């Protein structure tokens, strides 16, 4: 919960990094765009990740999955 991790969030549709980051609480990076899906990554603790999820939800995006791996 306290550790900073790498979260990979997959969203339905194609979204640009700029669109996502204009009003985001945390900067996210678009890692992959394929098959009408966009995967964004962020390095944060859980509080930051939850904030980003709410932000994406607020933008009307459909979340498909979230993966968590330890930050290097």
């Amino acid at each position, binding site marked *: 919960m306290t550790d900073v991790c790498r979260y990979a969030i997959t969203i339905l549709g194609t979204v640009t990094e700029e669109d996502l*980051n*204009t009003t985001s*609480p*945390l900067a996210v990076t678009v890692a992959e765009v394929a098959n009408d899906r966009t995967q964004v990554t962020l390095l944060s603790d859980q509080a930051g990740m939850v904030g980003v999820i709410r932000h994406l939800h607020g933008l009307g995006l459909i979340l498909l999955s979230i993966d968590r791996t330890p930050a290097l």
Partner: protein
Amino acid sequence: MPPYLLATKLHQPALPPQRVHRLALVRRLDEGLQAGHCLSLISAPAGFGKTTCVLEWLAALPRPAAWLSLDSADNDPARFFTYLAAALHKIDPSLGRDIEGTLQSGQLPAPEAIAAALVNDLLQARQPFILVLDDFHLIQEPAVLHTFETLLANLPPQIHLVIITREDPQLPLARLRAHNRLTEIRAADLRFSGTDTAAFLNEVMGLSLALDEVVELESRTEGWIVGLQLAGLSMRGNSDPAAFINKLSGSHRHILNYLTEEVLQRLPEDLHTFLLQSSILDKLHGDLCDAVTGRSDSGQLLERLLTANLFLIPLDNEQQWYRYHHLFADLLRSYLTRLGKTQVAGLHQRAAAWYAQAGFSGEAIQHALDAEDYPLALSLLEANIMPLLMRGYARTVESWLKSFPPEALPSSPRTELAFAWMYLLRGNYPLVDLHLDRAGQALAALGEAPDSLNAELLCLRSNLSFVKGLPQEGIQQAQRAIELASPDDHFLLGSAYMGLGGAYRLMGDYPRLQHSYRQAIHHNRLAGNFLPEMLAVSAVTLSAILYGQLSVALEESLQAIQQMENSVSSYPPISATVYGAVGLVYYERNLLDDIRELFAKSHRLSRLSGHNAGVVYGKILVSRCEQAAGRLEEAEHAAREALDLLALGAPVWIAPEVAEQQVRILLARDQPAAAEAILVQFGLKYENSICIPGRLEYQADPLYLSALRLALHRGRLRTESNSIRSALALADVLIEAAAADLRNGTLLKTLVLRAHVNILMGHPAAAQDDLLRAMEIGEPEGYIRSFLDEGPALIPLLKQAYLVSPQKAYILRLLDAFGVPAATGRTAAQLPEPLTEREAEVLRAIAEGLKYEEIATRLYISLNTVRFYVKTIYGKLGVNNRTRAVDKARRLGII
């Protein structure tokens, strides 16, 4: 602070005396502040000591802080910003007054307007300060978040914002981070290190743990402070701490459940029961807990809990109000459900009764709903719905209503009428109609409905008839409402007279409208109903100006302003009209010095009110001022803005005013064709020249006056000979209509314009007659600019008039205003109206160079009274600023 606000929400919680000092975190917050960061974000899950960390920082900071503890009810924007304004008041009572006034009047401005007003207010802060918003994760309402987004982007340097939250808020923090304007403290920073853990358990909790036990406990709780605190409580008196620690494993939630059970089991029965029963309360007070639990020693129990470190947080310095740590409260509530639904409902009912008696209607209704005691909830709601809606808590009320099962919410005329009032004030007229229809049906279902409810329904209908432009219906409804209302029901009578005044306003019946609106002012003042009172004052002043009674307009406006400035509460943005009316009178009297400030205030309040009409009108006034000062480009800019804003929607009466100012500017730019296009666009007919309609609508006076100015302009250019003849015909009709209806403002302006027409047509005697007649109307009211704005062609006539007219002093003032040197040799005794002793005293103070505030202090009068004296002095001396006043008074030997 208004009594319905919970002071505990604004109180900075007390710092626990026994704690682990977080020096590194305090230093980091300090460094951020020094580096000019605008925001400190403390983001971590519950139980990491976020609040304590900020409290420790603030305790050592030589800067005041405003604190606001948020809860989920603050997602209602009206409630959020009301509390925010109250928090700002604690730093400086003048901060947040405009917003508070708007919300108290039942209006909810757009997020941009609130943010602009907040930024404007914060810029006025006399000292730098910190604003802390605790539990910000509870705010998910887009309107509030959007306002904060704008606020953050424009935050004045005097303010540093601290957000304490369990999750990162939906604000554009990435941008702040990129620009190095954000200090962040997160869970990894807040978690206790091994040293912190040892200090906490052995020094704060009074245990004697060995180093390996401390390391093990820190590892199992991951430095999570609440977990450590619970573990410490569980281990008190435990002979084998190592074995206890070994049992701890799993997630934070699991540890929390396990440890809380452990702690509760160790408590004496009375304390255990008290904790469970009182957990239904968000805030704890000895008396409130007594009422809920049926005990008489709750105050002492709360002190015992505090001493025992049982997650009780004091909310005030007097230690009367407390709250449980959120995590602890959540768990207690889940254990409480084991007691059974009926018992829990009883606790909520008792809490509702206590809150209702203490005057906290919102909390009372919520507890009644939690108890599922719908009759109680409905009776509380009906008793309080008007004040709640007037405070702007519409969303909260709507969410309460949705909590009722349909069978428990019979159609309530009281509730429907309250909603109709709210939508009337917000200008949402279709919804007013809808709720009035429902109220009518509910009243019919009652059979013998009380007169007061029927009267209220008729009141609302009459006010709606005014909006719809139906005067006859409005008169009937209002008169019937007045008959039905009890003589001491000033709220109803005030509202009914508002409807009646509106109907007479539509009919152009000046004496009756003045009488009705004065009655409305009287009754609303007695009812303490500030918003309709100000609406009535606005109607009286604006109609007085239309009918040429500048003194009446000024007197009413100044009286209202005086009352507002003396009032402890804020004033509603509708008061923008009152400031605007004073500005209009000063404009007509050519007292331009303070107008800009008045118009700016009027404009700002109008924007906040969200009423486009006020904003449009404000722009017209600014444009007129700029033009009078010779700044045509600025005037053009403001007039264009007024025109653009008009497209967003405004009442029909305002469009002619916009057109009139447009035409003035276009004529000043020598663009008559464009001016004609504007008049056609706004409804006048041209076939070579102006077509005069059979019946002149008084609301269109500004258009007819503009048509006259256009015709004069063309006549002067000699481009259209017909134009000037049709102008004369139009002036004749307009003068006849205005004189018949006593619309002296229009009459005077038209006479001045006809004088110009007569000059142009070579009829000097007729021109002289018009001028003398205009001066008869103008002198008692101090009109100057209506003469001045039409150009200098009147100067020779004025000079001739000086020889024959008894209005010599007035003529000299007009000539002065035209820039014609005044006759010399006059003395004070020759002033048309000598200065009173008090006025001379004020004038001498001005000559000494004293500021208005200093004059007020010296003469023991209010600032407003000083302003009033100054304006009167200017009027009597025929000047428009203090330098000229002093100069002229010295020349005349007055001072």
